[in-house]
């Protein structure tokens, strides 16, 4: 016998009843009522903490029960099975286990699942999307930080020709072209857009007299394009951003984007290495030494270091701290063991 409250589903009046389970039948006894309902047609709400449980009968009436222990005993005696989640939801052990499991799953998906699936999806993104991403990125950069190139036409043509001679690897799928820009703000640099466009900055061209070194840097950028690194970055950071926003939703979506940015830095390190390897193979295929890339990288590093010395703005330092480029000596050693 359990004390419960009965509501008939037609009015809000509560009636105190004594509830018992006789065979396969609920029996409700109150001051002026006696009701019987078959157990099988009764919906028994799940146990959720200490909240009242409801037995909802076929005619729309229900009983509210707060004596959880007694109800559980009654149900067990009648052979009513509990849901498998029931026990888990009410045990501290399971809560701890679940916390650990969540951390494990999150780490595993971040380290293995995310890069892998971003790679798979990136390879399947239609060309139209890559084209659009490439052109809109270039438009944005042109508006924000790039200026037209000041190189004369013959120099541009010579570099384009030198680059055109660079044989792509046999498994290459993309078509490439170079555009020339300048950006005193960004300094010596070149970057690859998802559609195969390589943006070459005047500052990089000015850095070296050897065109082969420039070609080596272009081969490296080609590696980024071929492996769809830009697309993968976008996919990965939006996936991380999505999860963060959902998880931290109560805090602020702004806070959610910060970790995404910091976390991404280590990704592009792997990508730089992949591109270095790609450039190495391309250079070897074309009878050029991978050391060309090594020397170019060293000059780049030196140029950026001296720039930072000069400007020393806090923003640059912050950028440096989050820099996605792996330590250059390490990369040089990898590519060109005979160097020094």
């Amino acid at each position: 016998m359990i004390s419960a409250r009965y509501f008939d589903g037609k009015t809000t009046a509560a009636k105190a009843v004594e509830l018992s389970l006789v065979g396969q039948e609920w029996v409700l006894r109150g001051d002026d009522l006696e009701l019987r309902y078959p157990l099988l047609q009764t919906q028994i709400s799940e146990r959720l903490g200490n909240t009242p449980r409801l037995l909802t009968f076929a005619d729309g009436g229900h009983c509210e029960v707060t004596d959880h222990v007694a109800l559980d005993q009654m149900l067990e005696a009648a052979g009513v099975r509990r849901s498998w989640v029931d026990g888990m939801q009410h045990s501290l052990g399971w809560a701890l286990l679940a916390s650990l499991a969540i951390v494990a799953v999150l780490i595993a998906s971040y380290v293995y699942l995310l890069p892998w699936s971003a790679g798979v999806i990136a390879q399947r993104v239609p060309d139209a999307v890559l084209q659009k991403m490439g052109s809109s990125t270039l438009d944005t950069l042109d508006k924000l930080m790039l200026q037209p190139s000041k190189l004369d036409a013959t120099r541009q043509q010579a570099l384009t020709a030198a680059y055109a001679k660079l044989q792509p690897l046999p498994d290459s799928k993309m078509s490439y072209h170079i555009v020339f820009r300048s950006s005193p703000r960004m300094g010596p640099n070149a970057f690859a857009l998802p559609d195969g466009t390589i943006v070459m900055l005047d500052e990089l061209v000015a850095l070296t007299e050897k065109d082969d070194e420039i070609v080596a840097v272009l081969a490296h950028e080609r590696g980024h394009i071929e492996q769809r690194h830009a697309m993968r970055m976008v996919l990965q950071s939006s996936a991380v951003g999505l999860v963060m926003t959902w998880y931290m939703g109560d805090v602020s979506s702004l806070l959610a984007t910060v970790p995404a940015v910091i976390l991404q830095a280590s990704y592009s390190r792997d990508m730089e290495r992949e591109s270095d390897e790609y450039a190495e193979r391309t250079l070897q295929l074309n009878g050029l030494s991978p050391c060309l890339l090594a020397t170019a990288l060293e000059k780049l590093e030196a140029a950026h270091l001296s720039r930072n010395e000069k400007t020393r703005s806090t923003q640059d330092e912050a950028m440096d701290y989050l820099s996605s480029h792996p330590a250059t000596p390490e990369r040089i050693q990898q590519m060109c063991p005979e160097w020094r």
Partner: protein
Amino acid sequence: MVLQRHGGYSARGAVLGEGRGAGDDSLAYMDRERMDMQTHQQPQEHAFEFTGNGWEYFKIWIVNLLLSILTLGIYSAWAKVRRLQYFYRNTRLADASFEYHGLPMSILKGRLIAFGLLLIYYAAGAISPVLAIIAFILIAAIVPWMIVRSLRFKLRNSSYRGLRFSFSGSDAAAYTVFLLFPFLTLLTLSGLAPFTHQRIKQYQHGNSQFGDTYFSFDATVGSFYGVYLRMLGMFVGLGVVSGILVAVGLPLILVLLPVAYLFIAGYYAVRLPNLIWSGTGLGEHAFYSRLEIKPYVWIFFTNMLGIIFTLGLFVPFAQIRMMKYKIENMGLLAQGDLAEFCAGQSQDANATGEETAEMFDLDISL
């Protein structure tokens, strides 16, 4: 029969301790109270009570979160039902709790549809801007229809003391408040935002029912403008003060800005529910909401810190804390006996609604 029902109810009123003679003979007390009401029309205040507990909810939350992750989000529909059930059942009014009856499958279906629409929109946007605009228009055309289904689902699946809530807003009105007014708001650069907000709430609350009793909504457009304009004024004031501080070169601004922002956001988060709920009635009864800015901002801020420093494990505790504050500062000003609500025709209409539910039942809210 009638006498017993009253007796039962007044005993509960006494347990709640409404500040009157709790030890009185319950029947006599009840009768006197009823006479009071007839003569003075003095409403009886029933505050909502929230009995949720952080640790208890944490255990439910974390297990369901794990299952949701392992099933790639599918189980989140079940998790949502449990969350709502936990919050509903822990919300009590006049010593009885609310109940949520939604089925996870309906929620899953709604989520799949919403996810599909989002996917279509992004895919269209990636291919061409024209396609994106077409997709956007199509989605905008479906959304009000879906909101109505979602509101019906939510209310029909909520009950109190065995009586279901229901929603009877029309599709035509939904297109006006969820499509036309927001569009006009855009055109007027948000100048109509308070008006639109008021109309949406009027549509939601004014078309809701509990059993066969209608909800009413009488918060005016002017009062919505009042809240929004005051907020705008605070932002302008903050801008001026920050401008002066920057000009003077005081680093105080780094502290002032976030704090002021928190309080202005708190003002919005507190005044609007107060306005909306105090303007909402149920039959002859009225609701009240008496949230205050300082405690709200404190709970919000400490919740935020808790969530950040526990990497999110504090989320369930934060939800419980906030819910407790919000719910316990709300209540019903009852004009008569709450137990006298009865179900009439609306309850039958619900029963037929239950069948069509199979086809269109969905819940798009997260």
